[in-house]
Structures are given as structure tokens and as C-alpha cells.
């Protein structure tokens, strides 16, 4: 069996072989069977979703077509505000009044496009830390092997797409939180250019590092979602005023996906995975993706990013500082209400001085310029997303996770990065490759991902738990 994509569902909705109500019924049945084990949802918005699906069916039947997301079930990470339901941040600390009864602009855009929001998905508390068995929230489990972790912090969105509980969803990424669950769950995830998707109505983790992006099975599906999500919004002071920012227009990211990469220069960075814990299948999967890119017409060559370490260091120091700034007051009075792994991570911000923070931002700028000099010779650079497949729940509380992920450095840059399935480990767990591009070059990244996915089927593979459901 292969996964149902947004694009395929859209065709079925328009050729009469599927209704939005029937599609919602299918994903709801699957959620009923699998969610108790997988821990995808914090809240299922069943009534709202049914109403949205019925409206989609009426509109499509009447010739009112809102576009590729019309009638499509999507999940929303529960740090993004959704009207009609409290956003919990998966925390006992969070106030019910925050953005009460409002949609975050990105959620409003999805609803205006006719999407069917099925629920709020699990995360780490305030998008940082680790799954906490001592708190009254579901533990997100990887559909490929429920004894393993989904990755985070967009955990429920990643698992939900992989298991078919919805066809796409929203994640956020401050150090890898879209790309890591995309990698571990075998799906595609995009961290867009900083500011391309407005962050209003999204709880902050690192103000200068946060990105909102789409997660779905394919690069094409991510393109369809991004076309709706992207664009300037006055409530986000860092919002881009780039190509997608012209009021009343939408960038057509899917239109760039032709499968032909002729004329593109792509660098392959093999030196980043230096830990001895790197799975032996990681570099071969990177090479396999490079081979597909060359076959699609790209000029592929090796490259090294000398400022990688500095960019990763900057992300750490800046993230803990900015997160601590947001949580300091609440942590001073409600330490025990925060989860253990979330509070001990954020508290590192107390160990960083104001001078350290300013130095980190200055070093970030220097390291970004160094990367720009390397990237100037390429249209994109590819590198592994993680060192291994998804770790087991027995391991995640004891392993040096920061040494097994290759994502945080690229949050420091604000550059767009696409994570796409790159194969599997010997144990059958997904592996991933990330594609780093120039500012506002999402169309190029999505075209690269799409070209790979025209030659592979990793992104359409379904876990056994789904086929046996």
C-alpha cells in the first residue's frame, strides 16, 4: 500500500471518486484505531472537522474551488492558535487566555483555503525538551516502530502524516523540530526562509530562530501547502516582504516542480556526520540522493561547510537565551509545573550572560557570511538530516541527542531547508537528507525534492502498523 498524498486526494475530490466527508471518515477511522498507541493528538476537533468537510463537499459540488487544500484533512501542532479551542502548548503552565478564540494567521489561511483541520497535535512542552512520562499528555510514538520516538518537537504532526491520520500538517522549527520528526517518521518537511510564514499566533521558543512550515508525504504536497501559508502579515514584525509578500497574490510553488534539474549546481556535504554513532546507511543514502539529482540533470559535486560548527553553537546559545527570556517569570514561580526535560533545558539560559548572547548573534552573522561564500557557488547543498534512524524510548533519555542531529546550524542561517526521505536503515527505519538553499528559494528546494521523489518511493511507503490497521 502507498500513502495518500494531498495531490492525489485533490484529484479524487475533483473527479468524483472521493468526497471530503468520506476522506475525513477514512482518516478518522485510522485515528480511532492507531492514535491510542501513537499519541498523535492532544485534541481531536471532530465536530469542527465534520462541518468543514461537509462545507467543502457543498462548495466543490457547486463549482466553488478554493484550491488544492480544499477538503484536505490537516493537523496543527499545539503551539499554534486555533479558533474555538484552547492551545495547550502541551503544558500545565500555559494560560487559556493566550490568543483565545483566534486563529494564528497561518491557520486562518489554511481554513480559508478550505482545509479540514482535524485536531491539535502533540509536541514537546513549549516545543522543547523530551517526551515526559510524568506529565498527563500522550507520548508520541513512531509509526515505523512504536518502541521508538517520533523525534520532535513537531512529533504528532510527523507521526500523524506518516500513519495517515491526516494528509499534511503544520510544524515549527527552531533547531530542527520540523526536519527531525520528518526524518524519523519518513516524510517530507520544509523549514522555509525565516519570516516567509508569519509567526503571529505561534508560541515562541527562539524569537530569531523560529520558523513555521509544512509537513506532508511529498515535496509537491509541501509546495501546495506553502503556497497557501506563505506571505507577509502585519502582526509578525520579522515577516518577509519578498516574492510571496504582494498582497492579494500567492506564490505558485508547485508550478516549479518539473522533474528537470538541468542547470542547477548542487553541493554534497559528507563531512558533517563525524560521530562514530552514525548509522552505516546514512552516507550511502546521501549518495543515492545525489545520484538521483545527477540523473535529473543537476551538476553535483562535493562541498564542505566550514562554519557548520559555529552555526550550531550559535543556535544553542541563542535558543536557550531567547527561550529563557520568554519563560523566566513563569519558571521562577512554577518550576515544578513545567516538565523536567523542558525546564532543565530552558534553564540553561540562566547560564548565559547578555554578553554571551550578543557575541553569539555577532558570530552568527560572521558564520552566515562564511556559509554564503560557499553557497554562492551552488543552488543548494545536501547533507544528512540525522545520524541514525529514530532512537528507541529506552535510549532518548540517556543519549547525547544534540550530537545525533544535523539540523540546528541551519536555523542560525534562516535559510530554507527541505528534509526528504532518503532511504532506510538495515532495521527498516527511515533516513533523511536535508537540502539547504538560498533565501526565498523554496521553489528550487521543492523542485529538487520533487525530482528525487519522481525516482524513488520512500516518501510513499506506509509503516506496517498502518497496513495492518
Amino acid at each position, binding site marked *: 500500500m502507498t500513502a495518500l498524498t494531498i495531490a492525489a486526494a485533490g484529484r479524487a475530490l475533483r473527479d468524483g471518486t472521493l468526497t471530503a466527508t468520506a476522506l475525513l471518515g477514512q482518516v478518522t477511522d485510522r485515528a480511532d484505531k492507531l492514535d491510542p498507541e501513537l499519541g498523535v493528538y492532544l485534541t481531536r476537533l471532530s465536530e469542527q472537522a465534520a462541518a468543514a468537510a461537509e462545507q467543502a463537499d457543498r462548495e466543490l459540488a457547486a463549482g466553488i474551488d478554493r484550491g488544492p487544500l480544499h477538503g484536505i484533512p490537516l493537523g496543527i501542532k499545539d503551539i499554534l492558535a486555533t479558533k474555538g479551542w484552547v492551545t495547550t502548548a502541551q503544558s500545565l503552565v500555559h494560560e487559556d487566555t493566550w490568543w483565545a478564540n483566534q486563529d494564528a494567521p497561518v491557520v486562518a489561511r489554511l481554513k480559508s483555503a478550505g482545509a479540514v483541520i482535524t485536531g491539535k497535535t502533540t509536541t514537546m512542552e513549549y516545543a522543547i525538551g523530551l517526551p515526559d512520562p510524568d506529565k498527563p499528555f500522550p507520548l508520541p510514538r513512531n509509526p515505523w516502530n512504536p518502541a521508538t520516538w517520533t523525534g520532535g518537537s513537531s512529533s504528532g504532526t510527523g507521526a500523524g502524516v506518516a500513519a495517515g491520520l491526516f494528509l499534511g500538517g503544520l510544524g515549527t522549527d527552531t533547531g530542527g523540530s520540523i526536519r527531525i520528526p520528518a526524518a524519523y517518521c519518513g516524510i517530507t518537511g520544509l523549514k522555509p*526562509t*525565516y*519570516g516567509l510564514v508569519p509567526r503571529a499566533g505561534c508560541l515562541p521558543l527562539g524569537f*530569531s530562530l523560529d520558523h513555521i512550515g509544512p509537513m506532508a508525504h511529498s515535496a509537491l504536497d509541501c509546495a501546495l501547502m506553502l503556497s497557501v501559508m506563505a506571505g507577509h502579515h502585519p502582526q509578525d*514584525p*520579522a*515577516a*518577509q*516582504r*519578498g*516574492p510571496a*509578500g504582494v498582497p492579494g497574490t500567492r506564490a505558485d510553488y508547485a508550478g516549479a516542480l518539473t522533474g528537470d534539474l538541468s542547470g542547477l549546481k548542487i553541493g554534497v556535504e559528507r563531512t558533517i556526520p563525524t560521530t562514530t554513532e552514525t548509522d552505516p546507511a546514512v552516507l550511502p543514502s546521501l549518495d543515492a540522493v545525489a545520484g538521483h539529482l545527477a540523473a535529473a540533470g543537476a551538476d553535483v559535486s562535493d562541498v564542505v561547510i566550514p562554519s557548520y*560548527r*559555529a552555526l*550550531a*553553537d*550559535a543556535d*544553542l*546559545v541563542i535558543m*536557550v537565551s531567547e527561550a*529563557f527570556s520568554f519563560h*523566566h517569570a513563569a*519558571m*521562577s514561580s512554577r*518550576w515544578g509545573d513545567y516538565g*523536567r526535560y523542558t*525546564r*532543565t*533545558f530552558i*534553564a*540553561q539560559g*540562566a*547560564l*548565559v550572560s547578555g554578553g*554571551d548572547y*550578543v*557575541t*553569539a*548573534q*555577532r*558570530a552568527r*552573522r*560572521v*558564520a*552566515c557570511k*562564511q556559509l554564503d561564500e560557499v553557497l554562492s557557488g551552488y543552488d543548494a547543498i545536501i547533507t544528512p538530516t540525522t545520524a541514525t534512524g529514530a532512537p528507541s524510548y529506552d535510549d532518548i*533519555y*540517556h*543519549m*547525547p*541527542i*544534540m550530537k545525533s542531529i544535523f539540523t540546528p546550524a541551519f536555523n542560525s*542561517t*534562516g535559510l530554507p531547508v527541505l528534509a526528504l526521505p532518503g532511504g532506510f536503515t538495515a532495521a527498516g527505519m527511515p533516513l533523511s537528507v536535508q537540502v539547504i538553499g538560498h*533565501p*526565498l528559494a523554496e521553489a528550487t528546494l521543492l523542485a529538487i525534492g520533487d525530482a528525487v521523489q519522481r525516482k524513488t518511493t520512500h516518501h510513499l511507503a506506509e509503516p506496517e502498523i498502518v497496513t495492518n490497521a
Partner: protein
Amino acid sequence: MPDTQPSPETVAEVGALLTAAGLTVPPDEIAMIAASFTDLRTAASRLDALVYDDDPMPVFDPVPFFSAGRHD
């Protein structure tokens, strides 16, 4: 989680910093946070060395410099 055990001196230093920041942290969690302290300080030191060596015209730009339309 970090893979090194912090020294008693590091644990004491971290405990003092957390207290000065107004946080009331139990001893076992001070030790958890202290286990990350060395990596954090090492990262900060590397960044300090980078700007000392490579930032001859010091600039402080707290928001990625391509945001706010600078790449239109």
C-alpha cells in the same frame, strides 16, 4: 542528554547561577543542568574566538539580516 558527569565545582557554580536568576531548582536537576554547562560554555567560547578573529568591523544584528524584506 550530555554524556559527561559534571564536577562538584561545576554543579556549585551552576546552582549559584540558577539561584541568582531566581530559580528554585532541586539538587538532582541542578546536576542535570550542570551536565550541559560545559558544552554550553565551550560553544560560547568558540563563538567568542570567532568574533575576535573574524569580525573586524563589529556589527550586532539580532535578527537574520535577510529578513524584513532585505532580500526582495
